[in-house]
């Protein structure tokens, strides 16, 4: 019990004082995960829309792959990305292993199937006649896609929430491809794991509280937007 009380006391002090290491870790976490979420959103929505609106041979197989990817373990993703980015690997010439870029790549691979899967499911739920109505209004292909996505904005927010939530909280892939290097690739989750292994529960608790606050803040924001849309 003393350990817990002491840990929270120390965490409270770190948070109040604005510990520089803690701030660096938090900022890097946000940069990596928000960048990965934004890229996944763009790619996932485009990919999901294309798969949702077209019929081609092997479509069902691809959708099952995407659905499988939605539950892919981050350590497996980390392992795969590490192999590809390894010096002797197929993409070794990029020299980005153990950099934030590598972590962004790994997190995109985790979030992309989630956003794509949500988009495919949402597109399939849009009334087929509504699609025809948009075309009948004289929409060009681009206008059609824009209006369709506009109609889907609420479910897509859910995709953003799910995607961001999955990558801000993953540790396996970030640890493997980032290496948890101080001031370079150390993010909230990898730092928590390391501090716990060192027995420094104060910093670990402080970082965990920040992690929880970030996840909470992002979800509160998106939920407010979503509910406002529903009320309208």
């Amino acid at each position, binding site marked *: 019990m003393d350990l817990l009380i002491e840990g929270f006391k120390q965490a409270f002090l770190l948070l109040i004082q604005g510990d520089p290491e803690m701030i660096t870790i938090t900022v890097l976490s946000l940069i990596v995960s928000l960048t990965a979420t934004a890229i996944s959103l763009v790619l996932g929505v485009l990919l999901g829309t294309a798969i949702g609106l077209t019929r081609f041979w092997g479509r069902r197989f691809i959708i099952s792959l995407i659905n499988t990817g939605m539950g892919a373990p981050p350590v497996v993703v980390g392992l795969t990305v590490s192999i590809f980015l390894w010096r002797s690997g197929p993409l070794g010439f990029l020299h980005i292993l153990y950099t934030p870029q590598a972590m962004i790549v790994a997190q995109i691979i985790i979030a992309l199937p989630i956003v794509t899967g949500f988009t495919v499911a949402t597109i399939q739920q849009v009334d087929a006649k509504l699609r*025809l109505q948009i075309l*009948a*209004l*004289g929409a*060009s292909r681009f206008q059609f896609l824009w209006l369709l996505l506009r109609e889907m904005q609420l479910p897509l927010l859910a995709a953003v929430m799910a995607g961001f939530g999955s990558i801000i909280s993953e540790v396996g892939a970030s640890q493997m491809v980032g290496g948890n290097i101080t001031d370079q690739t150390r993010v909230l989750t990898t730092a928590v794991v390391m501090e716990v292994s060192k027995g420094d529960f104060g910093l670990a608790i402080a970082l965990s509280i920040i992690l929880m606050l970030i996840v909470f803040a992002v979800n509160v924001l998106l939920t407010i937007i979503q509910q406002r849309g529903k009320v*309208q």
Partner: protein
Amino acid sequence: MANNRSICPLEAKDLSVTLDGKEIINIPSLQVRPGEVLVVMGPNGSGKTTLLLALALLLKPTAGTILYDGKPVADQSSVLQIRRRIAVVFQDSLLLNMTVWDNVILGPHLRGIKGEEANERTRRWLERFGIASLAKRPAKTLSGGEAKRASLARAFVLNPEILFLDEPFNSLDAPTRQALIEDFQGVVHETGVTTVMVTHDRNEALALADRIAVLMDGRIRIIGTPQEVFAFTEDEKVAKFIDVGNVLRGTVDSQTGGLARVKVGNLEMEVVSDLSAGIPVAICLAYEDITLLLPANQTVSSARNRFVGEINKLLPIGSQVRVTVDCGFPLVAVITQRSRADMGLELGQKIIASFKASSIHLIPHQKSTDIHESGKSSEIDSRS
């Protein structure tokens, strides 16, 4: 209104749509005349919506050609250009998740009409359909009737050359529907827009159509003015669907100078017809053409046919009553509620059903059901 000599704004040739190996529609030829309201009538599953979508270039036909202003629709770019000259209203209002104003002005914006012209058009059509006060309301909060008005305003704001409607008044309650049909009728008359509407509703078709095409099993069975279609249909299935009235089976027993005696069961009726003896026929008789008389109070009349029967069904429909009389075969007559009250009609009561020989329309029983223009019976006869 219709003009055969000008170029048809819309025409289909050898049009066929097959889905999952099943042929949904097969239309050798269909022409929409400038400024007319063509109503395609058909039962559920007859292919009405498929035909409408194909004509509006929202569904690629399996085979055949669609011509706009006499020119075949060729490539994808011309599809978009033509779509920007037409408007479609579906059964569901299908408004987007934005305000009523934004929904109505969306079409002009998509077609490159911006600024004051788009605003002015939107204002005008919102007012015309009586929903200007709802302009700022989110479209999803509208009632069924209001949403339908918004979807009609969204179509007319486009100033379309051809307007397509897919059972637009179907899901509305009776008073809302009636009011909207009247408004729509007025707008179509004012604008003179060429209109293609599909419906299964006989009364809608009669209220709005310049011409009616009856579509059954994916084929147009008859096309013509409402009078032609309802009075001279040559197809028993069509007659039953469009509810021309009583449709009975019989056989021409004898023929004397244009007056045929037709046997129905053990009874005979006289019909003005040139059909020869021995031909099996469907006998079509409008409900309104039957006069009911009380046996004790018969009056002399010119009606050649009189049958005594027993009332076995009384079905009130608004201000009218459908009376089914069993005369050895069932005959349905429509009379007013007031007539029923005056005559004191009750179930089981004896009654006389009377009608003129000229009120009956005979359809030879094994007529061809291929596509034909109403009135061109020689085309049918040659194949029967």
